[in-house]
């Protein structure tokens, strides 16, 4: 076996992933703050008025990142869940469990900011169109995953049940993503386009990308933080957790 392969497997065990995650969290958190500050500055202070939606379009700077993350976190969660089902690795189920609450919050934020955007632009908080309905289903999938895992005491069985739900629910992601193309929805397609008015759209696009990066870094930091707790909880009988607890106790 070569070195790279050994290193890869090294971090697949909770006792070596735990300290690595602990070292990474402050960096991701700091990156989230920096990107967030830059994104807010561009989006709220500098970016010009939209020629169609006035200042109301600025909701895009939280709506689009939250929506992207809600879908992306689900894909990552389902990936870990599937990995756990296939290889029965300890870390996978913990990762999936750690991601679900953040994903649910992102789905909620997507719906919430979407409603606040829909009201002034379409005249309604909510419509049962394909995009909105499938995003609502995504929120329910997250809540279902969390509730299902919480209802089963044995963590390995909880992981398996959750994994099946997560994998079945993956079908919903392309439906959300392509809904605006497949059906005639009230929800518009992509609103930031470089072709309309390049200099103006560029500032908006950069603001949105920076906010998306901030949401990305935030999600990684929170999920890593949460997974460390899950590791301690699930492996509480093991020697490595005992030494971590002792080190924490002497601080």
């Amino acid at each position, binding site marked *: 076996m070569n070195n790279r392969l050994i290193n890869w497997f090294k971090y697949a065990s909770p006792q070596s992933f735990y300290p690595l995650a602990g070292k990474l969290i402050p960096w991701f958190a700091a990156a989230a703050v920096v990107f967030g500050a830059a994104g807010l500055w561009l989006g709220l202070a500098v970016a010009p008025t939209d020629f169609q939606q006035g200042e109301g379009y600025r*909701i895009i700077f939280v709506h689009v990142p939250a929506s992207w993350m809600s879908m992306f976190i689900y894909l990552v969660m389902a990936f870990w869940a599937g990995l756990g089902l296939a290889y029965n690795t300890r870390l996978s189920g913990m990762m999936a469990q750690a991601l679900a*609450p953040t994903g649910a919050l992102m789905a909620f934020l997507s719906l919430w900011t979407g409603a606040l955007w829909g009201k002034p632009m379409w005249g309604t908080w909510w419509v049962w169109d394909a995009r909105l309905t499938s995003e609502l289903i995504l929120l329910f999938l997250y809540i279902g995953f969390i509730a299902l895992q919480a209802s089963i005491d044995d963590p390995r069985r909880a992981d398996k049940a959750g994994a099946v739900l997560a994998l079945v629910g993956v079908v919903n992601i392309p439906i959300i993503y392509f809904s605006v193309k497949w059906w005639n929805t009230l929800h518009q397609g992509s609103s930031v386009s470089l072709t309309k008015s390049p200099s103006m759209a560029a500032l908006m696009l950069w603001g949105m990308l920076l906010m998306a990066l901030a949401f990305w870094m935030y999600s990684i*930091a929170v999920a890593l933080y949460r997974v460390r707790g899950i590791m301690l909880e699930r492996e509480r009988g093991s020697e490595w957790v005992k030494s971590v*607890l002792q080190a924490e106790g002497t601080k």
Partner: protein
Amino acid sequence: MNIHWQSFSDFLAMGGYGLYVWGSFGVTALILALEPMLAVRRRRGLLLRLGRQLRAERG
């Protein structure tokens, strides 16, 4: 990179969309602040609980 707004009240009004824009940014900020705070509290509780269990085990 000039600031887009004439005044602070202009900024707050968001061209008449203030309620919607600030309602979106406000709730997002609230959730993104609350989630880490709750996670930290949960972790502190967990460490206390597991620490107590460990001490009880060792007598």
